[in-house]
């Protein structure tokens, strides 16, 4: 079932957490709401579930206005970060809860519970209580419970947030496979960009109650719509410069840039893997000094300082790093392969993300 959100506003007291949010989720798609904590993503999800009401705007499921319907009547599946399993019920009782409150016949409940437990591969645990399960198993029970009534919309609130890294990895892939099987329209909240990239068809980037960008993982990474998106999706080096006409300038370097009127200050963003290191000066390069080398397994992070720009970082693959044989203190030259230019006025200088500032 498709979801259409139009002009949603929500405040808690004086704190406005959603500001005119509009979004379409096509039928059968898995969409990630991605953003820092406090950006409004969980509130948006809770409004979709019917656990909060918006101050203004409306929500439609398959074209039908549902804002006036209570959470109880919406038939959406909801998975919580901390599972919210009923602690005094067994796994099977948890999974069958939605059917029991609907007074379905015993045989039907039994059959559906068996089917769902098979789906989440927990057949053997049906008589256990939640506290006897691991975190990953609990979240699978929560998912089976949410799917019991075959909801046409599945909402997941940081579903893997409370799990350790390895289990999280496994469950992400498992969720993606499950979605490919069931094709239930899903919205899933996360603050972890890696998770969003791995699982979702589309990513909705949120910041301070607004949607910054909507697009496929490749789109939002390659063509960020704002400095916020640029900074949020991984480490980035920022150079202070200016734009004049359709060119951007950083010191002696010159790049193509979206046209601006007159001379305006600009920030030029370069991802660590899009900076090239040279031993000798080449045209269009900046001088820098290597300050530290951090091995990251398949890659090496080189931290440098450049006059006028402070700390910078470059990510090299292992082969390139070996060829260069860098050592702290080496004088080198940097040339960007790709830059993104935004007016300085659009950049709030988000301190949440690691950057080269």
């Amino acid at each position, binding site marked *: 079932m498709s979801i259409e959100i139009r002009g949603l506003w929500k405040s808690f007291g004086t704190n406005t957490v959603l500001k005119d949010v509009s979004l379409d989720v096509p039928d059968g798609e898995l969409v990630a709401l991605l953003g820092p904590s406090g950006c409004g993503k969980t509130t948006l999800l809770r409004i979709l*579930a*019917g*656990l909060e009401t918006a101050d203004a705007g409306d929500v439609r499921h398959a074209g039908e206005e549902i804002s006036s319907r*209570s*959470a*109880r*009547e*919406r*038939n*959406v*599946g*909801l998975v*919580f970060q*901390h*599972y*919210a*399993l*009923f*602690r*005094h019920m067994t796994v099977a009782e948890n999974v069958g*809860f*939605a059917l029991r*409150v*609907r007074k379905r016949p015993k045989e039907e409940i039994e059959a559906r519970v068996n089917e769902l437990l098979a789906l989440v591969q927990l057949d053997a645990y049906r008589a256990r*209580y*939640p*506290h006897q399960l691991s*975190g990953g198993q*609990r979240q699978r029970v929560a998912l089976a*419970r*949410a799917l*019991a*009534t075959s909801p046409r919309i599945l909402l997941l609130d940081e579903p893997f947030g*409370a799990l350790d890294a390895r289990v999280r990895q496994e469950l992400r892939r498992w969720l993606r496979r499950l979605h490919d099987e069931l094709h239930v329209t899903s919205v899933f909240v996360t603050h972890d960009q890696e998770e969003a990239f791995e699982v979702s068809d589309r990513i909705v980037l949120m910041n301070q109650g607004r949607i910054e960008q909507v697009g496929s993982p490749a789109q939002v990474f390659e063509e960020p719509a704002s400095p916020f998106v640029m900074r949020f999706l991984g480490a980035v080096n920022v150079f202070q410069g200016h734009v004049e006409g359709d060119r951007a300038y950083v010191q002696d370097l010159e790049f193509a840039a979206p046209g601006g009127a007159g001379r305006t200050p600009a920030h030029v963003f370069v991802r660590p893997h899009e900076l090239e290191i040279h031993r000798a000066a080449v045209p269009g390069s900046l001088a820098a000094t290597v300050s530290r080398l951090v091995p990251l397994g398949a890659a090496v992070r080189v931290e440098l300082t450049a006059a006028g720009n402070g700390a910078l970082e470059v990510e090299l693959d292992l082969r390139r790093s070996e060829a260069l044989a860098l050592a702290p203190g080496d004088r080198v030259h940097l040339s960007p392969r790709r830059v993104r230019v935004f007016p300085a006025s659009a950049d709030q200088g988000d301190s949440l993300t690691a950057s080269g500032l």
Partner: protein
Amino acid sequence: MSAPARPRRPGEDPPAVRIALTALALVFLAVLVLVPAAAVVVEALKDGAGLFWKALRDPDALAAVRLTLLVAAIAVPLNAAFGLAAAWSVTRFRFPGKSVLVSLIDLPFGVSPVISGMVTVLLFGAQGWFGPWLSDHGVKVVFAVPGIVLATVFVTFPFVARELIPFMEAQGTEEEEAALVLGAGGWQIFRSVTLPNVKWSLLYGVVLCNARAMGEFGAVSVVSGHIRGVTNTIPLQVEILYGEYQFRAAFAVASLLFVLALVTLVAKKSLEWRQHLARREGARRSPA
């Protein structure tokens, strides 16, 4: 040759301090609790079990026991219901005046029970605010069972709410939200999610509430009028017998309250253990 001294753990007090503190606590406990408790039993049985049973089978004593049970049977369920409702509203909703409500719940703990009794007389007594209207309609509150129940309800109403509020606050609302989204109605959520989750805390509050309801003296003393066989509860009966120098009988009836205290203690301990287990499961549930 002496054995090498066991090395002291960091933060551990010297043995002398530990022994002295423990001994002090035990002496205190013995003087203030164990000796008086033993005295009640010894005094009650001093002239033989025959006299003891006779004192308990006295019609006035039996009437006092019946009245005490009746008062507790009314006051405790009322306060259990009130405590649940108060804890539910305080922990599940945001509303103006919430902190005032929480403070008001504690009021009976802060007010002397005698004053609670006097307020009941002031409101419902013959010269009280509602007294004339009540007597016109043939309802007698003060110096009768309704007044005793009212005073007891007032004195004991914080127990259940006080027990539930912090527990429900710690549990949060996620399970109830999950039940709602899964399609459960208000009553279904209460019966199948909320109540099972708070049952041990609720029972714990009920046990404490019951102990106080049966043992309450001050407030009940003011409103009861001490009519033998009619408006005397166990504690009032004990006081009357004692005042009439019937020490054997007084101690025999008092031993009933002592048994109540023992039962309460055991119930309280086992409920505490259950609660502790429930909390631990809760903590394991969300390792946040």
